[in-house]
């Protein structure tokens, strides 16, 4: 990159979360998800709304009354587990070597 001329036009403030995630390196574990949801407990405890709100990667969404997790996009912060009611989520780190792999950090 040269000098002070800063001509890139893309605006960092207008990119969507999926666009941002697309810049990251992920090693997808195709065999197992590290997130399992207990729909009953999730619904009964109001966990669904909480995990949808706190997840910075937009991993959780509601589809046909079920909470689904797009685990491939997970940034592994553990925030969802921290706000989930006991038993609503089974969340662990992905298997060794899988998942997000920061190049900057």
């Amino acid at each position, binding site marked *: *990159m*040269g*000098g*002070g001329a*800063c*001509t*890139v*036009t*893309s*605006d*960092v*403030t207008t*990119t969507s*979360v999926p666009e*941002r*995630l697309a*810049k*990251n390196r992920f*090693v997808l574990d195709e065999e197992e998800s590290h997130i399992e949801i207990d729909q009953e407990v999730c619904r009964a405890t109001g966990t669904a709304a*909480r995990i*949808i*709100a*706190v*997840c*910075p*990667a*937009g991993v959780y969404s509601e589809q046909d009354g079920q909470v689904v997790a797009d685990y491939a996009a997970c*940034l*592994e*912060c*553990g*925030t969802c*587990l*921290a*706000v989930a009611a006991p038993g609503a989520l089974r969340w*662990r*780190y*992905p*298997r*060794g*070597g899988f*998942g*997000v*792999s*920061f*190049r*900057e*950090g």
Partner: protein
Amino acid sequence: MTAEATEPDFDVIVVGAGPAGSVTAYLLAQQGHSVVLIERGEAPGAKNLSGGVLYGRVLDEVFPGFAEEAPVERRITRHVTTFLTGDSSVSVDYAGRPLAEPVNAVTVLRAKFDAWLAERAEEAGVFLMPGVRVDELLREEGPAGPQVVGVRAGDDELRARVVVAADGVNSFLARSAGLRSKPPEHHLAVGVKAVISLPRTVIEDRFAVTGDEGAAHAIVGDCTLGIGGGGFLYTNTDSLSVGVVLRLDDLLKHGRTAAEVFDHYLAHPVLAPYLRGGEMVEYGSHLVAEGGLEMLGSVVTGGMVVVGEAAGLTINSGLTVRGMDLAIGSAVAAARGIGEAIAADDVTATGLSAYRRHLDDSFVVKDLRTYERAPSFLERDRMYGAYGELAAGIFHDVFAMDGTPRKHLVTVAREAFKRSPLRLRDVISDGWAGVRAL
């Protein structure tokens, strides 16, 4: 079980190659112990993220002159604190060459920096196992009660005299050993961060720094939409680390999504000019412990010690988050304590409590004590909204030349205060609590 099968494979197993784990492993190897360092990421640093301001004093004791060799980004010579309201901001800018020599604070990017630390450990003889997730602790009943004797990772079991849980803020190992319980939501915050690349010259011009100097901006107020926490904007060599830290209880209470608050922050008129033209090269998130001393759990059990953020070692003064230097400080204390316990052939909780004593004597616990009241002080809502409004109101009246006669600053302040929703009682109470906490 035969005696052979229970023979330890290593003197020490360290789980987690963040700053706490790599420095503990390095120092123990230097003492001549056999050490394995297990990391779930494909390489050390691959899972780690922070704002990136490392207060370097303690690391300089471990690796004298590290700032010359390690992949550090910039030396921070400028600290800017900004209170934001919806459309204005008030900043305090402290720039000082004295901050640069000897190195006070540097910025780091963890993928590179943690990898460097782990390499130093390997060089000292530590056996590094990246790409391996530890699944659970191996425990046995010993003469002095339950004793951690190793770890299980998948189908493999590894045994050691001492296990070091350096596995970071979620601290699954310490929790499984009963040393910690799930932290309450007001003791945790979620950090959302992006790295935005910009040419070095642009960074130097925008932040008024030269050479390898850098700036650290701490931002409170409207940047988090009034949610307890704050924002940061730190300079790397040719990128910016920009993010928000949001207290979980407050985020849930405000009914906002984390991504929404982050977007609001990036687009804020005070932030946007710094980021203009940059390209987002990475987007990440990580939890941060915010409980201060209150969160420091039990750090020793038979056969195991807990270091770094796994033990809850962070200080959030409202304007800075410190965790890396405390992680390194706890590593120094742990390596000493473990060394003594192994030498005395007593790795029970009693023998390993030498670690806790060294930790208590170190700057880590002393600083935690100093900031003991900061977390509850920072839980006061006014910190994140009304004070910024008040400060902005005062400066508006000072600088807005609207034809009305100028007034003394005291009068201006008094009038701004009258318009503000704050009550004097709150201000005095917060001021007093703040002085005592910070």
